Every structure is written in C-alpha cells, then in structure tokens.
C-alpha cells in the first residue's frame, strides 16, 4: 500500500478540510463585525419588503386570472390538516377506549407493560 502521506486521495481530503476550516474561520471573523450586521440587515430589510409587495401583487394577479392564490391553497391545506388532526384525536380516543376496555377495573395502560422496571445494578449487563 502507498504511504498515507503520499496518497493523493488523502492529500486531497486534507486540503479540502483545511480550505473549509480556513474559509469558515475567515468568514466568521468578517461576519462578526458591526459593518456586516448593518449591511446584512439593510439587504434583508429591503428583501423582506420586496417579497411582501411581490406577494400582494401576485395575489391580485391570480384573482384576476380566476386562479387560487397561495393563501387559498394554504387555507385548503389547513382544513385538510384540521380533518387529519381530528381523525388522529378520534384514533387516540379509540386506542384509549380499547386499552381501558381490557383493564379489569378500567385502569390505565392495562395493555401496556408494567411500570415496575428497576435500573440494573452496577456492573450488570443491560
């Protein structure tokens, strides 16, 4: 086998790793400055504002084309999620009723394992 120090794949990996560390470190130093924060937030603020305006414009356009807007699709998705949520609650209730019906006096978790586990003593295999 070739010496690892001469293995081109290892050299390549090491180089990539070092480049990553160096770039991250350099970028972190640059991003720690107040100037970076100022520029980033100026750009971010403009972008958020533009995104909002574009969203409003698109909404008007879709209404004029008689197409559902994103808000309407989200509304439909919410209704479906709501139905799914109610189904899950019914399922959980049925699950609970089924468990309780198996209990001799309607106690909790009759079909579940007993809550009697003790931690293994020191040195015991788990």
């Amino acid at each position, binding site marked *: *086998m*070739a*010496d690892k*120090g*001469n*293995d081109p*794949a290892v050299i390549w*990996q090491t180089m*990539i*790793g070092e*480049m*990553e560390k160096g*770039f*991250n470190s350099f*970028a*972190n130093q640059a*991003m*720690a*400055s*107040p100037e*970076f*924060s*100022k520029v*980033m*937030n*100026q750009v*971010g*603020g403009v972008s*958020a*504002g533009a*995104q*909002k305006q574009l969203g409003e414009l698109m909404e008007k356009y879709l209404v004029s084309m008689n197409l559902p807007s994103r*808000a309407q699709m*989200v509304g439909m998705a*919410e209704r479906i*999620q709501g139905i*799914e*949520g109610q189904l*899950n*609650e019914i*399922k*959980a209730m049925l*699950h*609970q009723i089924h468990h309780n019906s198996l209990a001799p006096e309607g*106690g*909790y*978790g009759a079909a*579940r*394992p*007993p*809550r*009697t*586990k*003790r*931690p*293994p003593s020191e040195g015991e295999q*788990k």
Partner: protein
Amino acid sequence: MNAPAAALDLASIPERIQSEVQRAIQRSIKGVEYISSSGPALGSTPKDVLLSRGTLNLYHYRPIADEIYRVPILIVMATTNRGYILDMVPGQSFIEFLLKRGYDVYMMDWTAPKPEEKSLRMEDYVLDFIPDCVRRVQQDSGETDVTVIGYCFGGVLSLLYGSIFNDGPMKNLICFTTPIDFREMKLFSNFSDRRYFDVDRLVDSIGNVPPEMILSSFEMLRPASRAVSQVNLWENIWNDEYVKAYRMMDRWGTDTLPLAGEYFRAITKDLMWDNKLYNDTMTVGGRAANIADIKVPILHAVAEHDHIVPYDAAKHLIAKVGSSDKEEVVLKGGHVSVVAGANAIKRLWPKLDNWLGKRST
C-alpha cells in the same frame, strides 16, 4: 519537505489506479441512483398522535420493552427543527434506544406554524403547550411525575417551564446543548444587533419568519461547509453507508421550520438583546422565570465542537440552576452529532440511560 516520489510505493500504483477506476464507475452508477431515489424513511418508530394543536403534535411511542420505568419521558423538540432527528432509522434512533431500555416516551414535535399562528407568543409555548402536554402524558400514563428532555431551544422552553412550574410535576430535567448566555452566540448576536436589525418591521411585515431565513442564518455560521459536504458526497457516493448517513442529516438539516412571528420577536428582544435568561430577569406572561428556582435533578449534555450553541453560551446552566443533584457532561461532537450521530450512540445515550434509570423509579 519530503520527496513524495521517493517515498511512494511504485508497486502499489496499478492497484491504486484500478481501485480509483472502480470507484469512478461506482460513482457514476450510484450518482444516478442517488438522483432517482428518495432517502431512507425517517421517524418510523411506531407512535400514536395524542394531541394535535396547530403547530404542536404530541406523540406517544409504543413501548417495546416487557417492563418499563415508572416515570414517563416528555421530549420537547427545538421549535426550528423536526423531531425525527431523534428517530432517524432503526439502530440510529434515540427514541428506539429509550424504548428498548424500558422508558415510556412522549414527544412534543412541531410543524410549520400557519399564517394565522403568527401571533403565538412565548407564553403560548411555555404556559400552555408544555403544561397541556404534561397533563396529557399524566392522563395517558397514569403517573404524576414526568421527566422532561429538551433539545437546543426545546431545552430553553423546558427551563422556562421548569422555572415557573417549580413545584411539579417535572421530576427530572435533561437538557441537550441548551444556551442560556445568548451574548456568547456571537454570530447570531451580531446578525440580530439591535442597532441594525429591525425585528418589529420584519415580523409586522411578513408574519412568521420563513424557514429560508432560519436555515441561511444557520448555514452562515459555517459558510463553506455546505459546498464541502457536496464535494465529500461525490467523493464517497460509492459508499452506501456514507450516502445513507448524508441523506438523513442533509434532509433533516434543510427541513427547517418557520418561527411564529411574535415568538421570534420575544426570542430576539428578551434573549438575544437583553439576555434575560442569563441575567435572571426573564418573565413569561408576567411570571418570573428564574432558573435558580429549578430544584429537580438535572443533566446537561453539551458538545465540545458545537458551532450553533458554543460551550460558552451553555456552560452557566448547571451553575445557575438551584438543583443540588446536577451534572454537566461535555461530549465530543457537534450540535447534532452529539445527540444523533455515531458519537451519540457510543457516548450520550448510554450516559443518559445510566443517569436517568435510577431517577425513573
């Protein structure tokens, strides 16, 4: 400097070339497979949904041990990410590990808050969602005591809950990589510098904070790492295990959730700007939340190379809680690998089992 040619084993060169050619062919084949296939199914441990309230889901994982500990566990997931990081695939699932070790496990997991949920506040999470889930766990398990485990910002929510409801029913508290000194999250602190970051304008104009913004702020902490991970993927695409692990982590890492607008406003103002948790001035819904009021046994697991929550941001937690039974464990690894990677399987999970088992009877 060495003379590479002199030290190179010439006899190994044909073998090496053959191996590289085979890998190149494998890369092409596996590369096509990668593009045309979906990743492994994640979060598949059998569970029941006990509660679904908008952004909140409460799961109960079906026990698999013949005998379980008396005290159930409620996991509070970070609000920025999905809970399946703790339930990746069989053999690499924290949830599965807990179930096999005899714990009864519940999880508070989050979905993207809907536009009308932009008004969810910190108090909705701390004074409503967590107490409601604790009640449901009590009802479902028939036990009064509950162990709470919080991951990252789920740990912050758990601390706030435990500070306010310090007379029970939380019996034990475990935090994973939980920040309390937000000044020490230096880059996040700089990104949200109050002189330049107008959180009111942001929340008032867009409502919920979009996931792209959350994701890009995480990625900016290590800007070269995403590109390097793509290079490494190509290098290792012949290796099925590497690709599987990459796909799991990549899917989870990019599956970031939006944050409810008012909740984000509170995080920014109370924690990032005023550092109230560290300064013991935090209030939630008018109720003081001082972590010195937490008296239950607590374990805090932190990662040595955590770039999201640096050790300096997390290290004061154990010193500041009022518990007499408290322990910090510093483990090798990063923010995610400490709870979900190979390191977690070897280090954190057995440590947690050892600590929690004797406190769960």
